[in-house]
């Protein structure tokens, strides 16, 4: 018995060790490119293109200087933050309310309404960009943040509607009915009871549509020229006529990743549950 028990304990410990090693390998696999980008962003042009790669070098902020001083990345960053935040908030608010209506009310033909909403995403962006360009010019909104805000909000909307609808359907109806009996009207039920219960879903959806818009390049490059330029457009400047400026490109990547990382970290508490898409019921 004694021996047996000890051997079981040892086996368990070995299993745990193997699991840790595998997890570390997986982390390394996904994190190495990020680490490499961060490293490259503080290398000089010579160090970046050195082969074999150098691990020890004189770090420099030249790439960041070029990005912010020469390419006006600061303005683009502010544009990006403004455009993406407003469009994300719009998509979240409108989308969640639409999702609630589609989940809870009996509306004639609501399935086809839901499909119509989804169909916005069925058309490839490249097809709509030229008509949008012409429309924007006619309306006089070309190269303004409002144009991108509307486009990004519309782009995010179907995703919000479809995912939040599933989350809202998962909230038992009797909870909402209890709230109505307890004295809430429909809006109060939605705001005080349903929304707090779908926070994990809201967090996951918010992060995902934020990233859609934050990284969006095609619309941003075609529908802005100088005033409403966003970060991805500036980052594309790293592609120079003769070669790609890897250092500059890495610096841009670092600047672009930071807000997303901060967002994900602050929402992490909810994300783990949200990304299972309601599969695990509390």
């Amino acid at each position, binding site marked *: 018995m004694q021996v047996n028990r000890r051997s079981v304990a040892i086996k368990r410990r070995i299993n745990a060790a193997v699991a840790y090693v595998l997890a570390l390998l997986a982390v390394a696999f996904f994190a190495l490119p990020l680490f490499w980008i961060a490293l490259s962003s503080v290398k000089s042009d010579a160090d970046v293109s050195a082969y074999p790669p150098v691990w020890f070098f004189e770090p420099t902020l030249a790439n960041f200087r070029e990005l912010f001083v020469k390419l006006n990345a600061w303005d683009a960053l502010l544009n990006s933050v403004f455009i993406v935040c407003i469009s994300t908030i719009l998509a979240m608010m409108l989308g969640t309310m639409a999702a609630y209506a589609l989940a809870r009310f009996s509306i004639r033909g609501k399935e086809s309404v839901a499909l119509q909403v989804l169909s916005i995403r069925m058309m490839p962006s490249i097809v709509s960009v030229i008509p949008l360009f012409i429309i924007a010019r006619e309306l006089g909104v070309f190269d303004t943040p409002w144009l991108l805000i509307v486009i990004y909000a519309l782009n995010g909307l179907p995703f919000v509607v479809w995912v939040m609808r599933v989350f809202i359907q998962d909230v*038992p109806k*009797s909870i909402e*009915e209890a709230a109505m*009996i307890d004295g809430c009207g429909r809006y109060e039920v939605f705001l005080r009871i349903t929304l707090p219960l779908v926070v994990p879903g809201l967090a996951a959806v918010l992060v995902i549509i934020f990233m859609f818009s934050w990284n969006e390049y095609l619309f941003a490059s075609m529908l802005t020229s100088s005033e409403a330029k966003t970060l991805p457009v500036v980052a594309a400047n790293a592609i120079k006529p003769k070669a790609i400026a890897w250092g500059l490109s890495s610096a841009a990547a670092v600047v672009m990743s930071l807000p997303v990382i901060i967002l994900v970290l602050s929402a992490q508490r909810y994300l783990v549950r949200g990304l299972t898409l309601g599969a695990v019921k509390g």
Partner: protein
Amino acid sequence: MSIQVRGLSKRFGGYTAVRSLDFDIADGEFFVLLGPSGCGKTTTLRMIAGLDVPNDGLVRIRGRDVTYAEPRHRDIAMVFQDYGLYPNMTVFKNIEFPLKVRKVTPPERRQKVLATAERLGIADLLDRKPAKISGGQRQRVSLARALVRNPHVFLMDEPLSNLDAKLRATMRTEIKQLVANLGITTVYVTHDQVEAMSMADRIGIMSKGDMIQIGKPLDVYDNPRSRFVAQFMGSPPMNLFPLHFSSERKIECKLQPFADALPESQLTRAQDLAGSGLSFLLGVRPEHLSVVPPSTAGAVEAEIDFVEPLGQTTNLHVHSNATPFTIVAGRTSARAGQTVGVAADPAHLRVVEDDPRPA
């Protein structure tokens, strides 16, 4: 009058869930809506609550027409089958919620929540979330949340059906006492006839969207209006035997001694039913039959098929003249295969209207 229901109907597409109900519930009365699943009892309750809107008819609470009023404007509270607790709030916050929505001041809220929790024996659970307490405790929380703001009407939708048998029995008495002490008008939905019998001041029995019979529990039990009520109430159910008038206007039954023993009042009822062209049955509760020596005068001779001893009583399943029926006796030495006499208490023989055959 606390609640008045007039001509209340609800259709879902082509399906009629509730058909033209009329009933009144008095102040402080404990009214039970009883019926098998799908009979429309929950839909009726939901229309009183304002969670469903009727297609026809009206609901009055305290004389005010609330047919189309929102639930929050009806001065009602409700306990749900699955409790409907807010999973993200602690027990305290759950109970406090109706007061908070109604803008009661925080000190008063606190005091009322504590008093209600104390009364229901859940004062030590106030900091926990609903997921961390047992089914019976959740039920108490949901009762507390309903009681905390002292509603005029208390609605309960099968509140005990998710509990185990033993807990159900305790909660049954507890709810009944609680509501009786507070004197709140209560509408209670259940499919369990024991719950209905033990708790109700009056029972309304529903079947397929119709109200079949309304009455005090024992009245309904003793004088079931139809085959459905006779068989739904009581366990084992009432014994029913086809009954008809012969061409010589004599009443006839396969167990003729029982038919011969029918009291005058029941015979009149049989004649009335026959006059309206309705078919009817002879009904007698198993506990009103007794085992007597064979060939006793006025008794039916029956053979015992099997014996179910339940401790306090014994169910004897017997047949006579190819008609099976059940007797509830005390302790007995009777064995399967034995032939016995069965006597009926004439005072408890009933004429029961047959249900219309499904078309």
